[in-house]
């Protein structure tokens, strides 16, 4: 695994840390957008290696975490129907809705299956023509192309028994929502490398200009993060703004244009509710009218289901970097990965769950 080891080298890590210590003259708030990056930061202990003045804020980029409670309730409602085979990525099936989670619905007898690709769900639909196969299509721009592909494939195969329960969200509008808030602390961003591998980084150029902040497209290995942080602090210290690309081994300016076209074909940009944050205008993807037959919300008529979040959860403040997970009085006591009160505790990529799992109690 030479490819991975190169990005986990302790001597190189020390060089970045020395550079950071040398250049940092005052406190800076930097947000890593993606939950995968949060996970690496805490897992590798990076948050405790960097200078105290470089303050990492853990962003909303965890698809499991920001999926609205009511969508989980809709998933449970659909999964309970006897004719349905409900398929999902593994990490969604333990996320609690208002009353239960997909695992417990499965324990009650529902046919809930973990798949590793939405195309596997299409295969299940083709093999089970008398059943309704639903795929839980959540995620950022990273998973949208494959989910769009599954819909196109199902249409091409003439499958009348495949649909997706979709809750896609987009990164740039969330960044703008964070930067535009009056109490915003964030001064620089590590953009999510995998999202940019699909979308490129052209979308971030106007945001960096408008808010005069540095945005560094960053990968997921420990050294990627250390380098991305170093590049961001260097730009902040020098008063530069704009987009830089740390993750050039995977990301280009244009991104994957075929994948982008596929997203366009099946989805359209729409207002979207984010768990823990609320509704952000034009921040999600809805299934286009042309593909309405493949939209599980419309097929199963669950659009009216709504749900209330626990009032105790401070997810909104955590996802915007105003508070750290252990600032929450419920953290680790009334709220744990076994019994999450809210979004950031539900998935390994959520900030609270990462803090909990890797022992960040204070």
């Amino acid at each position, binding site marked *: 695994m030479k490819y991975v080891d190169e990005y986990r080298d302790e001597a190189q890590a020390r060089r970045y840390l020395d550079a950071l210590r040398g250049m940092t003259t005052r406190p800076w708030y930097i947000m890593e957008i993606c939950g995968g990056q949060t996970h690496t930061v805490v897992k590798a*202990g990076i948050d405790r290696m960097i200078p105290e003045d470089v303050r990492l804020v853990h962003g909303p980029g965890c698809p499991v975490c920001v999926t609205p409670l009511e969508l989980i309730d809709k998933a449970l409602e659909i999964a309970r129907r006897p004719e349905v085979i409900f398929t999902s990525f593994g990490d969604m099936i333990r996320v609690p809705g208002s009353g239960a989670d997909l695992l417990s619905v499965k324990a009650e007898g529902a046919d809930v299956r973990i798949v590793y690709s939405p195309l596997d769900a299409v295969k299940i639909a083709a093999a089970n023509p008398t059943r309704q196969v639903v795929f839980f299509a959540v995620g950022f721009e990273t998973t949208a192309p494959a989910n769009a592909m599954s819909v196109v494939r199902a249409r091409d195969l003439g499958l009348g028994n495949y649909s997706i329960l979709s809750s896609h969200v987009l990164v740039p509008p969330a960044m703008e929502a964070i930067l535009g808030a009056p109490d915003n602390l964030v001064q620089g961003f590590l953009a999510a490398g995998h999202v940019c591998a699909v979308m490129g980084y052209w979308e971030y150029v106007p945001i960096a200009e408008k808010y005069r902040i540095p945005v560094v497209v960053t990968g997921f290995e420990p050294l990627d993060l250390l380098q991305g942080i170093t590049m961001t602090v260097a730009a902040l210290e020098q008063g530069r703004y704009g987009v830089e690309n740390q993750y050039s081994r995977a990301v280009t300016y244009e991104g994957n244009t075929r994948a982008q076209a596929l997203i366009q074909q099946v989805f359209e940009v729409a207002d979207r509710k984010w768990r823990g944050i609320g509704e952000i205008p034009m921040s999600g993807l809805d299934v286009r009218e042309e593909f309405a037959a493949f939209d599980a919300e419309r097929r199963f008529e669950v659009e009216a289901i709504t749900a209330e979040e626990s009032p105790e959860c401070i997810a909104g403040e955590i996802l915007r970097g105003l508070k750290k997970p252990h600032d929450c009085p419920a953290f680790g006591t009334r709220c744990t990965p076994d019994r999450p009160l809210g979004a950031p505790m539900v998935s390994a990529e959520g900030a609270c769950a990462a803090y909990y799992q890797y022992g960040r109690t204070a």
Partner: protein
Amino acid sequence: MTGLAGFMGATCPIPLDRYPTVQLAHGGGGRFSAQLVRDMFLAAFGNPALDILHDGAILDVPGGRLAFSTDSFVVKPLFFPGGDIGSLAAHGTLNDIAMCGAKPFALSVGFILEEGLPMDDLWRIAQSLGAATRAAGVPVVTGDTKVVDHGSGDGIFINTSGIGVIPAGVEIAPTRARPGDIVIVSGEIAVHGIAIMSVREGLEFETALESDSADLSGLVGRVLAAAGTDVHVLRDPTRGGVASALNEIAKSAGVGVLIQERAIPLGDEVRGACEILGFDPLYVANEGKFIAIVAPEAAGEVLRVLRADPLGQRAAVIGEVVTEHPGRVFLRSNVGGMRVVDMLSGEQLPRIC
């Protein structure tokens, strides 16, 4: 809580508001399993021999000490690269007895068969179980067979139990881990779990990986012959993996454990699969590896004995027992950071992206 409350005046101690029914995670070897065992089973029938929660019980009998252990096997698929449920059922209990420091002496086998299981499959499984026990030199001396309706089982479930004799001069207990002790793992970790995963429905990926399922009792016997009472703790990190096993030991002994990420032996294929699936190999099951916690002066000799054996060629020191952070396991990462390695909460699930 109705239905469970009030029986003989007892109340179900497991909080039922979240999970009124049993979840898969209750059998996953992590925090849910530990909670179920502690709050439900120990509360109902705990006693000094059971309360230690070792891989098997150690019982004083006239003339010596016996180890007694039981394990049930519900693996899917029944046949996997490197083994099948038959060989696994033999190795699992042999290893649990070996982890008590005992030489296995006799086994029992209970089969729960589902109506409709092909006789040919059962034949292969029986042959495999027989071959594994013969290779270990441990006879199956008693058994039982039950058949359940089609749909009430998953082809075949197997329970094996076994007893072994603990030689004089062997003193294995999770409570014996003490600061300064060295933590050794007998080879590459996470192989069994990933090999099973590689052939599971919906996730066939190209790999030459085979399960590490193996009888460890011979190798453990040689380690004990070489290092005697300097071997303080033995544990085979099956469900829940190395992380859960070390957490259990740290809690039992009231000590801390510090491991080095870069010292953990890991094959390239297992690493690759874990990267793709988002799994932490520290939580993935092993069926042919064990953790030995030994006095520092014996560590070199234990490593030498392990590495001289085909089952222990990649044995390595992965950490040490410390006085700091009692009851918890810490890891020093490849880039030099520190983090807690906690018990697994629920099953590890493949991630979205």
